[in-house]
């Protein structure tokens, strides 16, 4: 299946940037959780190893083959997530396979992103009109809304929301008329505004936020973001030093090794650390975005672009969230935050991009 020519074409720079950021994440996880039981550091290392192996395994399969399977993969994940939702509710507390799954630490909802990327890529690869038609828009939106609802009901708002940049990435790339853009923007604004202000009650909003956020907010709303801002701001130019951040080490910072990992970075390594990581992340994303141009077909172009949009969205939302520029929604930062499924999903997504790139050479 795999050709030596393809091996030569692997984008080692992209893999290097991917690993660089993942290793940075492991270091930060060590600092933010070394005093906790559960050895998050080693578990993340193990997941990293598994992710690297799985990435290279997927490279052996041509992405066009994967696209062929995409409806089945998508269907499998929808069924799995629905099952999780139903059984998780009806036999809560019982020793079901769902519980075993969560003990293992896997989150199928994360991997559902890959399934959606593949399905949308397949749908859009056949679409060649200059801009999006209504029916086609509804088809792709429907394909996204289904997992969005199932995941959102878990409830895991953060992961559900992360599906949106995949859809919007595809739509933008496909081409939107000005009318559609205005309609979409207006619709989103109206829905969001009425939903937040009129439909959801205060305690629901709070519950939503706290459910998404594992650590409960004991001292009033805004505490998490405040502690995060204190952590980042008190880091100053060069930070307080590795494992010396008081906000991190004395647990003032919530969800330190997951959603607020960049706050740890800001506190212990200062603005210089933030700048360095932003830079390395930017190079990583830039490498992905420029790879879009090297795809030899539409499907490949869509895959790489959707992956880039997903990762850029998660990164930007997270770094804005932790300084209060965006509501706390529980979106982890890919590669840096602790979480096996998230790490694996990111690796597989980047793997797809690599897959497309290495097979872009026409003279096979």
């Amino acid at each position, binding site marked *: 299946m795999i050709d030596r020519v393809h091996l030569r074409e692997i984008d080692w720079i992209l893999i290097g940037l991917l690993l660089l950021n993942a290793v940075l994440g492991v270091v930060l996880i060590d600092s933010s959780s070394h005093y906790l039981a559960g050895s998050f550091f080693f578990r993340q290392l193990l997941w990293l190893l598994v992710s690297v192996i799985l990435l290279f395994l997927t490279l052996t399969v041509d992405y066009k083959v994967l696209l062929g399977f995409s409806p089945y993969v998508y269907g499998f994940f929808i069924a799995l997530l629905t099952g999780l939702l139903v059984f998780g509710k009806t036999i809560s507390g019982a020793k079901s396979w769902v519980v075993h799954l969560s003990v293992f630490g896997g989150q199928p909802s994360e991997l559902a992103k890959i399934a959606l990327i593949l399905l949308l890529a397949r749908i859009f690869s056949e679409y060649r009109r*200059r801009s999006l038609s209504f029916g086609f828009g509804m088809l792709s939106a429907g394909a996204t809304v289904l997992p969005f609802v199932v995941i959102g009901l878990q409830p895991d708002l953060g992961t559900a929301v992360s599906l949106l940049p995949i859809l919007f*990435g595809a739509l*933008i*790339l*496909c*081409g939107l008329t000005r009318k559609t853009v205005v309609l979409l923007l207006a619709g989103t604004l109206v829905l969001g505004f009425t939903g937040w202000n009129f439909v959801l009650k205060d305690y629901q909003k709070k519950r939503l936020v706290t459910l998404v956020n594992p650590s409960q907010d*004991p*001292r009033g709303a805004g505490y998490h973001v405040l*502690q995060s*801002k*204190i*952590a*980042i*701001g*008190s*880091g*100053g*130019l060069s930070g307080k030093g590795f494992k010396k951040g*008081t*906000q991190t080490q*004395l*647990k*003032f910072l919530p969800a330190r090794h997951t959603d607020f990992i960049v706050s740890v970075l*800001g*506190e212990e390594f*200062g*603005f210089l650390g*933030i*700048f360095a990581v*932003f830079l390395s992340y*930017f190079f990583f*994303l*830039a490498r992905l*975005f*420029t790879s*879009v*141009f090297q*795809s*030899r*077909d*539409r499907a490949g*172009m869509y895959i790489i*672009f959707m992956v*880039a*949009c997903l990762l*850029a969205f998660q990164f*930007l939302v997270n*770094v*804005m969230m932790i*300084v209060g*520029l965006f509501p706390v929604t529980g979106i982890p930062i890919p590669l840096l935050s602790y979480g096996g499924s998230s790490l694996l999903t990111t690796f597989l997504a980047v793997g797809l991009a690599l897959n497309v790139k290495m097979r872009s050479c*026409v003279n096979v």
Partner: protein
Amino acid sequence: MVSPIYEDMTPNLKRARLVFIVVAILFGVVLFFYWKIQILNYGKFWTASESNRTREIVIPAPRAILTDRGGSVILANNVVAFKVSLIRENTRNLEESLARISPLLGLDVAVLRQRIDKYMTLPLFRPIVVKDNLSLTEVSQIEGRRMDFPELVIETEPKRAYPFLSFAAHALGYLQELTPEDLRTAFKDRKIGDMAGKTGIEGAYESRLAGVDGKLVEVVDSLGRKRDELERVEPRQRAKLALTLDFDLQAMAEELLAGKEGAIVALDARTGGVLALASFPTYDPNKFITRFTPEEWIELARNPDTPLVNRALQGQYSPGSIFKPAMAIGALDLGLITEQTTFFCAGAALFYGRPFHCWFEPGHGSLNLPEAIRQSCNVYFYNLGMRMKIDDIARYADELGLGKKTGVDIAGEKTGLVPSTEWKRKTQGEPWYPGETISVAIGQGPLQVTPLQIAAMTAQIANRGTRFQPHLVLEDDAKAGVSATRTSIPSAIFEKVIEGMWRSANMEGTGRGAKVEKFDVCAKTGSTQTIGRETSERLGIKKKTHSWFTGFAPRNNPEIVVTILIEFGGGGGAAAAPIAGRLFKLYKDKHDRPSPSSGN
């Protein structure tokens, strides 16, 4: 399917580039925001993180120990007391928390809320004391349920304790929590919740007695658990303060006064140091050393017998015959009489057309000054009153320290009252009538004195005119010579009055009850009517007189002055003089022990 190589994806790629540019711009914007909070607002957030992680705890300093003049008997020290405080930061809901705590501490929710409200201005992490002086049982009950009450914390503090309970309570004084008003004015450097001396030595020497609080800066985690200690400054207790009080004299004075109402003051005649200062009824200051307005204190404050009043300094009484030595000194100094001048006492005499009585109805007959003092003859002094102007009497009273504060080093002293023409004109808008002078001559009329003033006056007579400042701190004994003042009245005049006072005690005079063998006590007694004789007769009430005694010993090189006032005690000679005798005897016995150097 068209070969991919010819497929035109340019429009799509243009859009991809646009999205990438937007992402790049967003990176820049977000980075700018990080720069803002990390570089521009660094100070603000750094301070916030420091106050997050550190907690400053005040370690209260114990107050200085108070001892008697010997230095070995501790009159006030400190014991460890437990207090329970609430940390508002550790509560989810203050009201719920108060409701849960209420049965544990046995306090009403309303009372708890009131206590919390009082300290509302403190930062959230500062513990607010909700109950102090906990018993060990209470401590174990609270500690045993530590997990249920994360907002409660038990701390220890040094608490003032008076081991001899009410012993010298009025001289030592008591503590109370500083009020917000205090904190704004005199106690700007102190903290809300601090206790401070209010009266007596505790009040007057507050800055000398209060130690310097220490502090402990701890590193705490987000749950408030201590992780490390950054800084520790030990509290500093100041050196112990020795008082002039003589434990044995004070103890006997209190024993003799128990059950009565009145005051006893004993002074060291050579320095003005207060050897004993007793006021009855009294109180136990241990009972209300608490932050919260204690019921005991309210009860005492409302008590009609006014146990909180220090009668030695604050009780103002008519001096009666105790004033006669002052009259004698004035008349002698003015040259109106000599010690041999005699007047005839027939038991009563007419002055300005009105009869004035002697206490001895049959009359003393003809007597000179020493005899008049010995027998405390009223008629003799009426005669002096007729010859002296009221303003002259006022001048001599002033020379002897009456009508003004003695300047003793504890607060609350009253001035008493010495009438003069100016005083009458100012207060009543009337001229002074000479007839009024006759009453003043035997210490009646508007005259008012405190027992301490009389003690100081007696010491001045004993020292033949030299006046020492009464004081309660032993260190001031050394300065007594420097601060002593001398009146212009020649000492020979004092000698003549002393002769009369000596006779009073030693030659079967009114002060004979105070006589002590080989101690040459010189004395003067007094019995003052609390209501006028006419009123008493009209109403048919026979109220006992206040009993006065003042005296010193020995006659030459006097060492001790004793002044006694017993409210409604009856005749001064009968009620007060024997008490003085016991005190003189005790003093003599204590100081007469053969000294090793004399070889006895």
